[in-house]
C-alpha cells in the first residue's frame, strides 16, 4: 500500500495539480473483497487527478437493490445511515464542506441515491427514519450521492487526457453500462438509452470505444444466485455482441456486472465452444493503466479472464502486469 501511495504521489507531482480536492467516499462491501481491483485503481487514478477519496470512517452495507414497495422504509435505513456518516464527515471538517458523496460501485450508487431522493422528497419518511436511528444525528438531506464517473466528467476529459502517460492506443473496448448507472431515469447519470459517459472517458484514455447494442441490457444482476444459467445466457449475448462490434475487452463500473460477465465465461465456454474469452475490466483499471500507475493499482490478478495476453499483444502492459 505504501508503494502505491508513493507512486501515485510521484505521478501527481509530475502532473502538477496544485490543490487536492477531498470527497467523502463510500466504498461498499464488495470493493473490500472481490472488487479490490476497482477500488485500488480508482483511488490511485483519482490521486493522479488531484482528487482524494476519503473513506467514511464507519459505514455499512448499502443494502443493495432499493426497496421498491411504497410502504417499506426499513430497507432505506441502511442507505440513510451511510448518508448520515457522510454528513458527519462534512461536519467534522474533513472534506471542506463537500456535499457530494462519491461512490464507485454503481449498485451502491443507485441504492444510496434512490433512498436519498426518497427522503429528500418525503419529509414524513425522513422523519420516520430519523426517529428510528439510535445515537446518530438526524439526516438533514444535505448529501448528494454521485458516481465517480460523474466526478471524472466534471474534471473534464481534456484534463484526464493530459494525465495519460501510456495511451491505450488501438485498444477496442466495449463499455458496458448495465442498469444501475442509467436507470431509473431520475437516478441515472446519463441518457438511459444512449449513454456515452464511459465512451467519452475511454476516448480520453486513448482507447477506441466500440458501440455494443447490448451495453444497456441487464446482466441478470442478483439472479446469479438462483439462476446461473439464465445469467450465463445473458452474459453470452452481451459479450457476443461486443465481439461482433469489434471489441477486445469490456469495461464496467459494477462489481456484480463484472462478476456476472467475467465469471460466467467459464459456463459460457462449456455451453458455447466458439466463445472467445473477453477480459472484463473496471474502467478505472484501464485508467490506472493509461496513467502509467504500477500493477498493484490495477490488480489484474483479481479479474477472472486474464487481460494480460490482450494487453501484452497491444503492448500496453509492461512485463510486470
Amino acid at each position, binding site marked *: 500500500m505504501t508503494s502505491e501511495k508513493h507512486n501515485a504521489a510521484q505521478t501527481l507531482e509530475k502532473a502538477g495539480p496544485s490543490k487536492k480536492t477531498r470527497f467523502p467516499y463510500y466504498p461498499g462491501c464488495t470493493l473490500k473483497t472481490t472488487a479490490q481491483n476497482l477500488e485500488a485503481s480508482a483511488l490511485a487514478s483519482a490521486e493522479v487527478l488531484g482528487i482524494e477519496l476519503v473513506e467514511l470512517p464507519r459505514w455499512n452495507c448499502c443494502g443493495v437493490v432499493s426497496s421498491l414497495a411504497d410502504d417499506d422504509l426499513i430497507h432505506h435505513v441502511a442507505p440513510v445511515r451511510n448518508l448520515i456518516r457522510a454528513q458527519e464527515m462534512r461536519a467534522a471538517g474533513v472534506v471542506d464542506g463537500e456535499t457530494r458523496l462519491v461512490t464507485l460501485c454503481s449498485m451502491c450508487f443507485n441504492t444510496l441515491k434512490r433512498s436519498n431522493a426518497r427522503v429528500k422528497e418525503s419529509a414524513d419518511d425522513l422523519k420516520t427514519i430519523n426517529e428510528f436511528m439510535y445515537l446518530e444525528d438526524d439526516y438533514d438531506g444535505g448529501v448528494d450521492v454521485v458516481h465517480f464517473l460523474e466526478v471524472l466528467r466534471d474534471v473534464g476529459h481534456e484534463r484526464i487526457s493530459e494525465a495519460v502517460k501510456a495511451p491505450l492506443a488501438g485498444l477496442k473496448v466495449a463499455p458496458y453500462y448495465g442498469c444501475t448507472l442509467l436507470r431509473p431515469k431520475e437516478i441515472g447519470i446519463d441518457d438511459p*438509452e444512449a449513454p456515452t459517459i464511459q465512451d467519452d472517458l475511454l476516448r480520453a484514455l486513448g482507447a477506441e470505444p466500440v458501440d455494443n*447494442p447490448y451495453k444497456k441490457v441487464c446482466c441478470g444482476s442478483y439472479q446469479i444466485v438462483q439462476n446461473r444459467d439464465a445469467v450465463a445466457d445473458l452474459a453470452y449475448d452481451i459479450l457476443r455482441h461486443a465481439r*461482433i462490434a469489434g471489441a477486445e475487452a469490456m469495461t464496467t463500473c459494477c462489481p456484480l456486472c463484472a462478476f456476472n460477465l467475467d465469471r460466467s465465461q467459464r459456463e459460457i465456454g462449456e455451453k458455447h465452444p466458439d466463445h472467445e474469452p473477453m477480459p472484463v475490466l473496471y474502467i478505472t483499471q484501464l485508467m490506472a493503466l493509461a496513467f502509467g500507475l504500477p500493477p498493484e493499482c490495477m490488480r489484474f490478478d483479481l479479474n477472472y479472464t486474464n487481460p494480460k495476453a490482450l494487453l501484452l499483444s497491444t503492448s500496453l502492459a509492461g512485463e510486470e502486469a
Partner: protein
Amino acid sequence: MRVGVYVCHCGGNISEVVDVERVAKAAGEEADVVMARDYGHMCSDLGQKLIVDDVKEHQLDAVVVAACSPQFQGGTFMSTLKTAGLSPYVLEMANIREQCAWPHADAPSEATEKAIDLTRMSIAKVRLDEPLVERTMPIGKRVLVVGGGIAGIQAALDLGDAGFEVHLVERDPSIGGRMAQLSRTFPTEDCAACILSPKMADVPANPNIEMLTYTEVESIEGTLGSFDVTVVKKPTYVDSATCVACGLCEEKCPVSVPDEFEEGLMTRKAIYVPFGFSVPNKNLIDASVCLRLTRGRDVCGLCQKACPHGAIDFDQKPERETFTVDTVIVATGYQIFDATEKAVYGYGRFENVVTALQMERMIVHAAEGNPIRPIKGRVAFIQCVGSRDEQVGNEYCSRVCCMYASKLSQLLKRSDPTRDVYVFYTDLRAFGKGFEEYYKRAQSEGVKYIRGRVAELLEDPETKKVTIKAEDTLTRQIIESEFDLVVLSVGLCPSEGTEGIADILKLAKSPDGFLQEAHPKFRPVDTLTEGVFLAGAVQGPKDIPDTVAQGSAASSRAIRLMNQGEYALDPIAAFVHEDLCDGCGLCADACPTGAISQATGVPTISEALCTGCGICLSACPRDALDLHCYTNDQLLAAVEAALKEGRNGHGTIILVFADDTATYRLADNVGTGKMPYSTNTRIIRVPSGSRVTPKLMLRAFELGVDGILIGESESKSSPYAGSVEAIGRNVSTVRGVLESEGIDPGRVRFTEFVTVMLGKFVGELNGLSEFAERLGPIPHDQRETLGRNVNGKLFGA
C-alpha cells in the same frame, strides 16, 4: 339621485315565500329611493312599461329590480332602461328568486330578510353606478394569415374570395407546407401534390392576397381592428422578377447540402428552387451555406456568372414591412417529432431506419420512376413514435399516424405484393370518414398488424439490417425479427413558428404545447384574444380535411367580426384613479393580456384588450386601479348594506364573491334545483374572483362579515387567464394578515367550481357557515384593530 325599486312576485314564485310587500316597504325607506313598488310580473310588457313610465314621471336616474337572476332577465331590463332613455348600466338586479324564494322556501322569514338585504345591497350599488355608454370601434377588412400551409392557404383564399384584404406570411421560401411533401392522402389516395398545387397557384393569382414568403412576423401590437404588424422579408439574393428558375445557376453551384423538402434523403445546391411546384417557383440562395455569403466577396460567385438574366443580387438586405390588419389567423402548423429523441429506435444512427415523412418522399420518387433508394425486402412500421409516450413528454395521440402508416404500407404492398409489410401498433385508431374501411383494405391486401409497441431496435453491424424487439400482446409472445427497412411513424409536434407567434400574440398553450382554443366545444377556432383565430395543426394534430375545415372556419369567424363594420367594447374594464397613481407600473406587469401599457406616469388601459378580470387591482399598492361596474366603493357599499341591521338574527354573515362564469350561474342552478343552504349567505356577483382584492376582503371583515368564500370558474373553463392563481395569492395574503391579527385564517376560502357542481357549492357554503358559527363572530375590537392595520400589513409601513 332618484332611485326606483321594483319587487317582482314572479307570479307567486317569489311572493309565495318572500313577503314582497315588506321588501318593497323596506326598500322605500332607503335613502334616494323615491319609488318602491311590488308587481306580479316585472318582465311582462306591463311590468316593463311601469318602469319606463316611472322613469319619465318621477325622473328616476337609477333602477333596482328585485326579481330573478340577472343571468336570466338582465338583458330584458337593460333594454327597458334604454327604452326609458337611461344608460343600461344604471340597473341593478337583486336576485330574490334563485337566491331567496327558491333555496329558502322552507324558511320564509329568513328568505324575506335575505331579500331585503339583497335589495338594499343593490340599492347601495346602484347609487354609485356610472351611466356608462357602450363605445364602438370601427373595424376594417384586413387580415393577417400567419403560415402558408394548407390551413393558411384555405383561410387566405376564403377571405380573398370574400373580398377581404389578406396578408399571407410564410417563413419558408414556398407556401404549401407539409402537405406538399406527401405522396398521397388517406383514405382516398389522391395525389397530394396534384390536389394541392392548383390551390397554391390560386394564392398569388388572387388580387386580394399579398403573399409574403420567406418572411417572418417580427411583432404584432394592438387589438382587434388595429393590429400593427411588422414582418421581415429575408433576402433570397435572387431578383424574383427576373429569375425564371432555368437552373443554370444550380448547375454551377459547388455547394451541396441535404434537401429539407426531401427530408435529407437528397441534396440540393446552395442556390435552389424549394421544390418542383413551389410557389413562388424561383431560385433563392441559402445564405447559411453559400460560399460567397459565408466567406466573402471575392469567393465563388459562379451562380452570378451563370445567370443569363443577371438575377443574382448578393447585396439584398432583409426588408422590414409594416401594415395594419383588423384580425389575425394563426396557422403555423406542426413539425414532425424529432426521432433522434427516441434513441432506442436508433434514428440517425441506423442506416435503415427512416421517418414516415422520408418514406413519403421515397414513395413519391419511386412512383415517378427514379427511386431515391431501393425499397427492398421486409418493411416494418413502428407506430406512436413520439406520440402517446410520456418518456418523450408527449402524452397525446397524433391522430394521423395510424392512417398514414396504413396508407404507406398498402402503397408499398401494392407496388410489390410479395413484400412483407408489418405495422407494430398499440391501438389502431380509424375514427374518420372512410378510415375503418381503409384500414380493412390494408388488412385485405396483406399488411400484417402486430399489436405491440416496439421495445427497441438493434442494427446488425455488417448487414445493417434492423432487428425489432417487441411483444405480440395478443399471443403474449416475444418477437425478435429482422427487417430491411424500418419506418418510424413519427407524431406531430407544435412547429417552431408556433412558439414564436404564441409569444408575440400572448396566446395560451394547452398542456400538449399546441395553442389553446377559447372553448373546446363552442369556440374551437377562436382564441381568448379577441380577433385572433387558429386554423389547423397549430391547435393540435389533425388530418387534411379537418385542417381545411378549420381554415374555412377561422376565416368565417374573422369575417363575422369584420363584416359588422364596428364592434362594441365591453364597458367592464379596469380604469385608473389618476389622483392615486404614482406610476410604479406594477399593474402593467400583472396584466395577463397586455392591456396595460405604462412608460412613465399614469398607465393607459386598452378597453379592447382588457377582459375585466381585475387582476391588476390587487397588484396596485395604492388602490389606484378600479373596475367599471364593480368599483371598490360599490362593492364596499354593498357589504355595508348587507350588514345594515347587524347580523339580522343570524349568528354570522357569510359573504360569497361569485364569479360570473361559473359560481353565480351555479348559485342560480342550486336555487332552481330548490336545494336549501344556509340562509346567512350573501352573494355578490363579480366578473372574476380575481377582482376581489385582499384589501376588499379585509375591509369586509372589518365591516363585520364573518366568513368569505370566493368562487371561481375552474381555470380550464375560465375566460380569465391566471385568475385562479391570482385568487390563490390574494387569499393566502389575506390569511396571513388574519393570522397575524389572531383571527382564524380559515374564515377565507377559495373554491374552483363549474356550473354543475351543485352539491359541492352547497357543501362549501354550509361548511364555511358552520365553521364561522363555531368560531362565532369576530370580536369588535379585533375588527377595529384589523381596520387600523390593513394598509400597513398589505403594503408595508
